[in-house]
């Protein structure tokens, strides 16, 4: 029954969005992390979403609906910040510390977008559940 598949689709979307919320939380928490070594600095993490099954396969298949798959999490390649802080215990020989490349504004926007999308998926799920319950009691009223 195709209404049941909606639960999988909405569920996959909720899983993907909550992974996105997780990366946002970790990015925001580490927004002020510093390190003396540019290779050890925290870099912003971003999830990559993909439609599943992919377009090419789902076009031929009988089902046109697709869920979301978390394809992976990549680290941002944005330039790191550098700050002169010779008193910092982590400072390198030149007295510099490297700061993470997390953009707080971007992360806040990501958080809002993820929570809105999560809400939409929940709405879809509860509406579908209601429809299924009504279908189950068909003819009883």
């Amino acid at each position, binding site marked *: *029954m*195709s*209404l049941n*598949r*909606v639960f999988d*689709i*909405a569920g*996959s*979307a909720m899983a*993907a*969005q909550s992974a*996105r919320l997780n990366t946002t939380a970790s990015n925001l928490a580490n927004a002020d992390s510093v390190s003396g070594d540019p290779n050890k600095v925290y870099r912003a993490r971003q999830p*990559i*979403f*993909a*439609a599943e099954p992919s*377009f090419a396969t789902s076009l031929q298949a*009988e*089902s*046109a*609906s*697709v*869920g*979301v798959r978390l394809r992976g999490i990549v680290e941002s390649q944005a330039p790191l910040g550098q700050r002169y802080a010779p008193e910092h215990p982590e400072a390198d020989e030149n007295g510099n510390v490297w700061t993470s490349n997390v953009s707080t504004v971007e992360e806040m926007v990501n958080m809002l*977008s*993820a929570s*809105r*999308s999560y809400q*939409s*998926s929940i*709405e*879809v799920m509860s*509406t*579908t559940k209601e*429809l299924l319950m*009504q*279908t189950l009691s*068909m*003819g009883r*009223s």
Partner: protein
Amino acid sequence: MKIDPFANHASALKLRASRNEVLAGNIANADTPNYKARDFDFAEALAAQQSAGGGGDTVRLLKTQPGHFGVAAGAASNPTVGYRIPSQPAVDGNTVETDIEQAAYAENVVGYQASLNFINQKIRGLRTAIKGEI
């Protein structure tokens, strides 16, 4: 007299359910790069299904000889799904406009409930006729 009073609404329910699935996929992929929003024309799909044999699996032709042609009754149950033309495409190639999808979803759910209501009324009417009392 009609043989199957529920035929139209039964196939409408089926189509509404599969449209529900397509739209749920759109809403789920609102943030997926390069995803293209999809939908199908419900009225057209219903008309196609009815012209293909009123409900799909009510009457089926048997193939007793290898030379018999098949009738495309089952083919009509899969509506042709197209891509939505976006009014504001995003830079990441995604064409889902969440508000439009949610509106379509709501419309589809109401349609589903309407069909369900019609079926329920029909059942109630038949039951009243059988019992002969009100």
